[in-house]
């Protein structure tokens, strides 16, 4: 720009620049203040929502505990929840053998493994395990197998599922009431359920 023109317009240009600078600064400050006010308001509303949600959750939790606590404790008692009760399982096997008048039950319990069908049960924070128990039975008749399994379940010493059974007729030259005629091999899965570690489990 021509120096003479610049000199002639210096004062108004300085005024214009000052107005723009002051205006922009003012606007920036006010905008900042408005943003802060809105942010504070949003924060307060968020706090309120959180408090309401917390209370609602406490009420819901209370209702859930009241509804499920007895059944949960019952599951603890029967051995589904918590550690395995292998001695109880063996006692139940002996009882079922005696009750069914079988010719002895041999068993083999494997190491505890993750339950392979846990994905069907949506366990969340809970972990599911199983211990495979292979039992060999000598039966008078193949019809004795189902009552044996029923008696074992009725003992309520744990929860098991029958995964596999094979029965084979043992040819003894004719059936006799005091001799076994069928050999049965079954594979049972004793299932246990474990809640997460105590720390962080009981959220309140």
């Amino acid at each position, binding site marked *: 720009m021509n120096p003479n023109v610049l000199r002639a317009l210096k004062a*108004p240009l300085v005024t214009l620049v000052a107005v723009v600078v002051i205006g922009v600064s003012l606007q920036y400050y006010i905008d900042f203040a408005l943003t802060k006010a809105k942010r504070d308001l949003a924060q307060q509303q968020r706090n309120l929502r959180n408090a309401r949600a917390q209370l609602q959750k406490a009420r819901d939790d209370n209702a859930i505990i009241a509804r*499920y606590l007895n059944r949960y404790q019952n599951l603890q008692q029967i051995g589904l929840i918590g550690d395995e009760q292998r001695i109880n399982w063996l006692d139940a096997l002996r009882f079922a053998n005696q009750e069914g008048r079988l010719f002895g039950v041999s068993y083999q319990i494997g190491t505890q*493994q993750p339950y392979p069908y*846990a994905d069907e049960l949506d366990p969340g924070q*809970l972990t599911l395990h199983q211990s495979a128990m292979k039992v060999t039975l000598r039966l008078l008749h193949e019809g004795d197998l189902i009552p044996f*399994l029923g008696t074992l379940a009725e003992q309520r010493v744990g929860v098991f*599922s029958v995964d596999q*059974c094979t029965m084979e007729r043992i040819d003894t030259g004719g059936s006799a009431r005091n001799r076994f005629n069928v050999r049965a091999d079954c594979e049972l899965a004793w299932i246990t359920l474990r809640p997460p570690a105590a720390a962080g489990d009981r959220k309140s």
Partner: protein
Amino acid sequence: MNSPALPRLKFSFGRSDTGDKLLVSVSARQVSAARWLNGRVAGGDIFTYSDEGLSAFKSYLAATGRQLPVHMIVDAVEEDYRFESLPHSVGSDRSGMLNRKLKQHYRNTPYCSAQLRGRDSGKRRDDRYLFCALTNPELIAAWVRAVIERELPMAGIYLLPTVSEALVERLQLKQANLLLVSITSSGLRLTFFRDAELRVSRLVRIDSSGPPAIKSYAEEISNTRLYLHALRVMTLDEQLSVLIVDSDDTLPELADAIARDNPNIECRRLARAEIVARLGIAAPALDTSADALYLHLLGSRAPDSNLAPAEATFGYRMHGARLGIYALAGVTAFAIAAWCAFTWYQIIDTNVNLESDIEAAAAQVAQLQAQYLETARQFPAAPASAENLQRAVEIAQKINVSKRSPETMMTILGRALDQHPDIRLKSFGWKYGRTDIGQQDPGKSAKTKSGPGPAGGARQQSGLVGGEVRPFRGDYRAANESITRFAAALSVQPEVAEVRVIKVPLNVSPSLTLSGNTANSSVLAGKADFELLLVLKPTT
């Protein structure tokens, strides 16, 4: 003039300036000055055209105080008007052409201008221009310099006849040939208008004292008629209208004399009272000088024909630019203030809401937390969280629902065996898994892994039935038919999804070696063993 070298644009279409200004009329005899305040001429001063007058004029400018833009009229004999048609052009082409023409016509003066006055009616439709100039720049040089030295913005310099165009326009004079006659400080000014458009003007210096002056005026008007004829502006046969502008009511006899001596001249006198009434000039202002009427017309509206060179109007343009920038700054400040006020209102509104919300929310939060503590106190002692409590119970229910036993398949098998006494069961296998019996279950293979097995399809019950056909006397066809019937009896059961014969007593496949004995003896015939795969439909 020590003005910067700005582009010298001598062509303008006019600009109206209705703000306060300083009006100056310069003639060879005297200089008149008046202020234009609030749309009216306010006061007036007269300075002699001399060094003393110039000094007084400088003092007058110094006393002005404000940065008023200066508009100057020049009433001089040394003036020139010429009409010329030029090829139609626009923009920079037009500016360049006009500047070249101005330099060509008026080489010795910077005070010249050109105005577009319409288009020719001919085929080329050329542009018609009025070129005018003050041919003696020295006449006003000292006075212009005085203005610039005082740093007053010089807005424009105009020839007096161009200013009188506003008079014709204001009075709405429609005569085709009009001669405007007035007495100015320089003498008798005769300006001819053709169709209300300035064509030519004369200034005649006549001693205006006494009755002989009237006679001289009348003679000059008659001479002007001849002059116009000589210039071929109009013929003697044409009707000429004369308007005598008599601002001090001293020329009533002139009108009579013209009417008497020139029968083909229509003469009319514009008396002082009519001037005051129709042109809006105050009577005292009209009395200040002989040029007061033209100062008033210039103040009302500046004509297009500004003679001032760019160097002279530099200050005025800067003055306008300053005002524009200040106006822009004002508008900007107002807009920012309005925006800030609106935003501030939002902040106040938000803060009001915020404060009320904070109070309400804080009270609600406190109340909710108290309720929460009360509710938490009512919690029974639970071994796990509510979520895990519920989930554990639901998992136990699902396990119970999903459990299966061989009982269903044994019942189905029993019903089929009752219908087929020739079939004897030798072995029975049952499996509940994602694969059929005899195949490795992917869930089982995952046992060695640390986590649960991979998700697969739904579990189903499958069984492997081993049996034989009895009695069997070597009739494989009959044995096969018995096995087929037995398989069919199984497959019609509603719970059965599939029955497949895996092993038959005699495999007749061409890919295998086949041997035996055809003797009709059950001892020699061997056994008719078979195996069936039985798959049940999944149940929920």
